């Protein structure tokens, strides 16, 4: 890596990420205080993941990001292999196979799959640039995404599969896919999905989803119809965030989180802890950091040296935007409960390493935005 490249580093993005991670660790300290056996357990592990991620970022910057394009099919193949292995030899947690054990660590391949699909799909689209006008042109793209997505849906992990759709949509739009067809397909399938769920609820139509998944999808419309079971998560989350008010109850003071009324409050529902303990000020500040990060990402995508870089960054930014929307939307009761973690904040090694690697890619694309003359 040339020294001149360092001048191109996006310090704003780096600062935003550092703030986000600091925020995450502080909240994690409070949110996990009553979860593990050791109060610092989760903070230490999360810190470990962050440093692992920093090391990966450091190393990755020495490689040209275009290198990934060369190996895109190997990456795609490797991705399918690990997703298959999850289904075959994965660890069963609450009836879902999402984890595999490697050398004593548990990995969640669906997190890494998002990254693999982005770097692979970016190459796939780059080679098809300018030839994405007809449905016939688009079909291979859909198949490319559909194969790993169905493997994830099989786990079952509805949330991550939906993230794949968001990534695909974002990247294809930027790659210049036919806007009419894409728009029609997006809103068409959304309409079909809503109609199918409505049909399932009213006339008992068959759907390729478990009953609990459907219930979770629609319970946010009225959590009070089942306050002790499927509506419980949402109700408790709304109570937590609402009772936080402007300034919040203070770290370690949120009764909803500390007394375990709020489920999964160090993972999927960590935003509710922020809302309860740090109030409107804290939760809006967090949203502001995310907004800045995503807008910086969009700028990097636009400024990228080549289409491949633009598309990789677009995929990453689409992923984050979708995850923030669905996660915060879920905890505030305007989106279905799908079990998508909040990037950089929710506890989880696989997700943290994936997201940190994404930052590495963003910086990599940013550093190499101009041709360097030696």
């Amino acid at each position, binding site marked *: 890596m040339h020294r001149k490249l360092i001048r191109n580093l996006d310090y704003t993005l780096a600062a935003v990420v550092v703030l986000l991670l600091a925020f995450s660790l502080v909240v994690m300290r409070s949110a996990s205080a009553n979860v593990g056996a050791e109060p610092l357990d989760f903070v230490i592990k999360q810190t470990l993941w962050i440093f692992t991620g920093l090391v990966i970022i450091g190393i990755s910057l020495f490689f040209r990001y275009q290198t990934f394009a060369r190996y895109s099919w190997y990456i795609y193949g490797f991705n399918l292999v690990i997703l298959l292995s999850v289904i075959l030899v994965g660890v069963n947690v609450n009836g879902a196979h999402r984890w595999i054990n490697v050398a004593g660590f548990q990995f969640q391949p669906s997190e890494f799959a998002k990254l693999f699909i982005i770097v692979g799909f970016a190459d796939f689209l780059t080679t098809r640039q300018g030839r994405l006008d007809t449905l016939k042109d688009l079909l291979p793209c859909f198949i490319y995404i559909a194969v790993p997505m169905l493997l994830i849906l099989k786990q079952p992990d509805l949330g991550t599969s939906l993230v794949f759709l968001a990534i695909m949509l974002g990247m294809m739009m930027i790659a210049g896919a036919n806007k009419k067809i894409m728009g029609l397909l997006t809103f068409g399938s959304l309409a079909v999905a809503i109609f199918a769920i409505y049909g399932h609820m009213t006339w008992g139509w068959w759907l390729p989803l478990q009953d609990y998944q459907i219930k979770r999808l629609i319970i946010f419309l009225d959590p009070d119809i089942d306050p002790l079971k499927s509506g419980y998560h949402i109700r408790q989350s709304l*109570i937590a965030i609402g009772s936080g008010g402007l300034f919040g109850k203070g770290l370690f003071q949120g009764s*909803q989180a500390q007394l375990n*009324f709020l489920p999964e409050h160090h993972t999927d529902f960590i935003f509710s802890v922020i809302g309860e303990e740090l109030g409107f000020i804290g939760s809006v500040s967090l949203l502001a950091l995310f907004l800045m990060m995503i807008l910086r990402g969009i700028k990097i*995508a636009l400024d990228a040296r080549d289409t491949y870089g633009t598309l990789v960054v677009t995929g990453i930014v689409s992923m984050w935007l979708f995850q923030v*929307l669905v996660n915060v939307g879920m905890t505030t009761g305007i989106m279905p409960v799908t079990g998508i973690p909040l990037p950089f904040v929710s506890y989880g090694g696989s997700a943290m390493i994936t997201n940190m690697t994404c930052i590495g890619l963003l910086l990599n694309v940013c550093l190499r935005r101009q041709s360097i003359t030696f």
Partner: protein
Amino acid sequence: MSVELGDLTGKFGSDLNNDPPAAKRRKDLESIFRFFSILTVLVFVVLASRLVYLQFIASDQYTTTSEENRIKLLPIPAMRGDIVDRNGITLATSIPVYNAYVTYLGLQNTDMNGVIERIAQILGANDPKITPDYIKNLINNQKFRLYEPILIKSGLSETEVAMLEERRADLPGLVVEKGPVRSYPPYEGTRIAGHMLGYVREISEDELKRLSEQKTDQKYDLNDMIGKFGLEKAYESYLRGEDGYQQVEVNRTNRPIRNLFTQDPIPGNRLVLTIDAKVQKAMEDSMDKTLTQLQRENPKAKAGAAVAINVKTGAILGMVSRPNLDPNDFIGVMDQSMADYYFRSDPPAHINRTIQAAYPPGSTFKPITAMAALEAGKLDPHEHITCTGAYWEKPNIKCWQVHGSVDLNDALAKSCNVYFQEMGRRAGIDYINQVAREFGLGQETGIALPGEEEGLLPGRDWKRAWGSSYANNRYQARIRELEKQTQEQLNNAQTEEEKQKIQKKDSQMRKTIERDYKSDMNYWPYWQAYETYNTSIGQGRNQYTILQLGNYIATLANGGTRYQPYLVDHIESPDKQIVQQFNPTVINQVSVSPENIALVRKAMHAVADEGGTANYLFQDFPFQVAAKTGTAETGRAGDNKEKDYHGVFVAFAPFDNPEIAFAGVIEYGYHGGSSAGVVARAAFEQYFGLKPSASGALVPAGHVEE
């Protein structure tokens, strides 16, 4: 955070900068990223607006819910006050026991069936009733109040508590808590005074509704215990105390995390009774022994009742009813055989036969007749009446035997029916009524126990009401019968002639019935002479409670002051302050002159003296006793008139300075003296502390025979 969209003009592949298609491509890209940015900002605006709604507009409401989530009031039940005898011997108390509850919220996200299985395994070991299905049923019954703990078992043994604590990790949702339970400890081996004490049970929904409408200070919740019978019911508001509560912070499994505030419960007050446990026990033991013996003669002899009263105050010293009631039987669920014993058997054990049953007094009524005749000025104590074995006036009611010439003392001592029928005739029913009423017969005594019977003192007023209703009923029944018969005959009639015949017969019959009705109305509503004779000797319609009889004897013994009988001497607060002291209450002073009362008392002394019907009972007493025996027709359908008589007995002692009065009955006991009399003797022996001496004569305890 704002990124000027115009700034997004970095170079997209600088090598393509001067290439026109690339420039167009660049422009397209810019516009689509502009759209992307707007979409991004929009997403964040939506999320932030939602936060504004939740954390500003609806914040108060969520704050309240959050507090309700975390703060729970756990009631701390107050210890119910003890009930003790006059000497402080505990008859009813509250003991802390361990109870096992489950909370649904604690169970819901666990392997519920497994947990229930394990609980049933531990608690069901000594209690086969507790099965997994039993627990599931309890949970199901409370499905609308799932946040409340559900009681699985009360009164856990120490082993059970230890086992549950040991396996706490396997039993989420299980809570073991200490709470008081009512207990009625035995006194010298037997549980005494059951009917008087009564019992407590869980409040019923009806009671709860009624109490909440009354708006008293006492607040009750479902599952609260309440006095249902006896003193427990009568003094509920004193005994109950006031529940405290603990305001605790709980987590979502409803386990308390932190105590926020504690309001200590206020224990209930202590009732100190007028009862003497020793006298009470002596009466009960003697009653049981006598019943066992009498059952050999007459298997129907299963029930009885007796009271002992302090004649100078009206304080009750002992009060027995049989078949026995053990308040401990009313704790928890009652099985079928037990319920039958108390409510459906013959005789049902639940009734307190001293106040909830009225008995014909038999000859124990005769002192009233004597006083009435004396007051009317128509009885000269030295006048002799000749008994030839039956009264000379119709219907010639028989005497026990031929007594020959008797005066007042002889007549009462030998219980001569002829003498008292004559005295009743001379006094007249109105005089008898007046005296009986002054002595409290046929009226509630006003004792503070629920469910007291009034009894019946027959007289002209009663007869008028009873007789006209009797005549009316008879008339209506006959008319109905006639109409039915005529209708039937008319339906069967073939010819017009036949029908006319039937109609004629009908109107004739109607006239007869009308005539009979008139003569009935001239007869039944009027008091008849023979009824006076019956009443005079305590037969006929007379019916009084044993407590009324006891209080009448106490009034007679003390010279004519009728006190209200009472059971509670005083009520103490938990810190031993006297909350209420009950003093003797005079209801009335009888109008019978002291001289006349003295004459009758002397005659009652003759009963227990040589030649009297109760002479054998108190022969060995170191002081004189006055008494009256009674052998009363039961008045019950299906009884054998030859041998089915209730044995009634009244007495007071000592004769010259009376302290204690007694009244008792043993159903189907035949002779008063040999049935209830034995109980009286036991009561007096214990009250005066009499012990058999070396020579076989009784002496007061502590006195050495000279």
